[in-house]
């Protein structure tokens, strides 16, 4: 019984310090970074949320860049049930999914699809595509919008960044950001 009471005293102390105190302290730090601490939400001119800069959303219209495939939720890009496909890389299901994507992008052996457009991310919400994947789609986007290809390609290059600076050779493009920039360009 005394052991139980001592344990309960420790429960009270640790709840107070490690839950209440710690959470309050970090919420305090978060006040200094209000944008990102609330999920880096992008709002339209009327104040309504369009999405989060960090979270992929679905794009199907030819005039937009398309994100990587997603296994989050039943139809993908469900930001309340993030998930990967959890398929083995040897799985026939992945082959079927890749075939459908190849058909959608019209990829051919002469014009093969960049791998990130065929492979789903771990959380199904990866907001980025590779620079190659963005360039791959530039022709379709330019045609759908009636813009010169060079203008769309220049936009792609402007949005490309290295996620780890000199530590990463890869260059990425944020899909929602470049699509917002496209809409601004067209209007």
């Amino acid at each position, binding site marked *: 019984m005394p052991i139980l009471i001592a344990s309960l005293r420790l429960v009270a102390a640790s709840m107070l310090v490690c839950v209440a105190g710690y959470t309050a302290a970090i919420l305090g730090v978060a006040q200094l970074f209000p944008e990102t601490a609330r999920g880096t939400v992008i709002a339209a001119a009327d104040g309504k949320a369009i999405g989060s800069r960090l979270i992929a959303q679905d794009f199907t219209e030819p005039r937009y860049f398309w994100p990587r495939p997603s296994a989050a939720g039943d139809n993908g890009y469900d*930001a*309340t049930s993030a998930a990967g496909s959890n398929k083995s890389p040897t799985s026939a299901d992945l082959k079927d999914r890749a075939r459908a994507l190849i058909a959608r992008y019209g990829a051919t052996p002469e014009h093969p699809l960049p*791998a990130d457009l065929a492979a789903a991310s771990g959380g199904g919400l990866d907001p980025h595509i590779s620079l190659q994947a963005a360039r791959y789609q530039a022709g379709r986007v330019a045609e759908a919008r009636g813009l010169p290809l060079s203008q769309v390609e220049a936009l792609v290059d402007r949005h490309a960044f290295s996620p780890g600076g000199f530590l990463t050779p890869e260059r990425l493009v944020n899909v929602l950001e470049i699509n917002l920039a496209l809409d601004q360009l067209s209007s």
Partner: protein
Amino acid sequence: MMYAVLFVVLIVGGAAVLSWPLGRYMKWAMDPATPAGGQDGWTRSFQRIGGALARTPQTWKQYMVAMLTFNAVMFAVAFAILALQQYLPLNPDGMGPIEGSLTFNTAASFTSNTNLQHYSGESTLSYLSQLGGLMWLQFVSAATGIAALAALARGLAGRESMGNFFVDLQRASFLVLLPVALVVAALMVVGGMPMTLQGSVHATTLEGAAQTIARGPVAAFVAIKQLGTNGGGFFGPNSTHPFENPSFWTNGLEMVCIVLIPMACVWMFGRIVGRTRHAAVVFGVMLVLLLVKISGAVYFETAPTQAFAGLPITQDVGNLEGKELRFGPTSGPAWGVLTTSTSNGSVGAMQDSLNPMTGLIPMVGMWLNATFGGVGVGMINMFLYIVIAVFVAGMMVGRTPEYLGRRVEAFEVKLAIFALLAHAVFILGGTAIFAATPWGQTALNNVGPHGFSEILYEFSSASANNGSGFEGLGDDTVPWNIATGVVMLLARFIPIILPLAIAGALMSKKPTAQTAGTLGVEDSTFGIMLIATILVFGALTFFPAAALGPIAEHLTFMN
């Protein structure tokens, strides 16, 4: 190749460098020198909080009873919060009741420092359940491990008592975990991670569709998740979720945090027993095994996604299925090894979608469970291997085996072997039962050997108190919840209680004088002996199971 090496060196090297001063600090925090004329200020405060029982030195049995009682209370409190979450505050998204066996599994999982998750946080738990239930357990379960290691070390150092659990738990929670977590969580906020008590965002996408975006107090949760080798994610897919790991830089910091305190625990152990050279040899053994595993995983993951072979797809950075682009291609396999070497269990890429041989290496990490291992308990597991190594070495050269000046005899070795064999029985027995019955067969997301791997991985993860998974497995069923829940609890406390019993037996023996005939534990001979013991005991036991799963898949499908 150059980028991969640089990445691994920065992460592992960075953690190793930081672990030295942290280990020194942890010695001060966990085992302060007693000043003349009473206790230091912190100890006096902790004794006041703990009450009368916190003032008396404990034998190993008293220490164990205190630890088990406190852990039982931890389980009960967390179970109650989870079970009642629909009636409690801090539930802006209106999360409903949780099914009974899932509540049991989750409470057992976080009490045992495992953080196996048969649910998705963003669609199951209220913010109160996340913070007051699970994040609280992430602190106190990790603190339990650190306290147990401090007690073991005191026993081996030949002290009169093991210390006092009620004081040790507060030292580990308030002086070790809390300050480090505050720094890391603040850095995560700076790095762009959400930290809010507001509910989900309801957005209308550019194409006019509705998208609900779950968020929450993520940064506080993630810091202690990584530091305490807990690994339980705020969101279902853990640190692959952009809110749980927004950038390359947060990713690097999270990876360092996975292994930082487990590394520091080795130095703390060495300082308490007063043998830092011995700690350096143990650290070296762990580091060598860790680097071998990381190299293997990174190498195997450069093979492209096999399913895309023959299709018009350009694959120039290896297998991308289940990986985020912002972390770079080396992060996924390296994280997979770090998280399973340390009983952390968070993921930065989907383990289920790793190439077959890459997926084997995390399983090896969980089978050994001592290449740094969990906070506190990793070094305790390594102590079991050390007991066996000195015994075998002593037998080989015909000398009386001893460790840190105490004779190691049949009783201690029996307990050590029992603790190590329990791990194998839980994994192989559980896998055999579930692979042979519909309990396992109907839960699979992949067919053939990869399906077998999913079952094998789940039991390895439960018994190693790891918590990662081949997450395709449909494991939120009553048989899975109960079986893994029971395994997690047994596999948590058996390898803490038995080593304490061994230390209790050793400390009651008369110290032996060190002579020229004493087998040293501070040189490379001992290091090699230890590696051999770990590989023979830890790895060979599981080789047949590995052959049926990942190795069979590799040989069948990869070309």
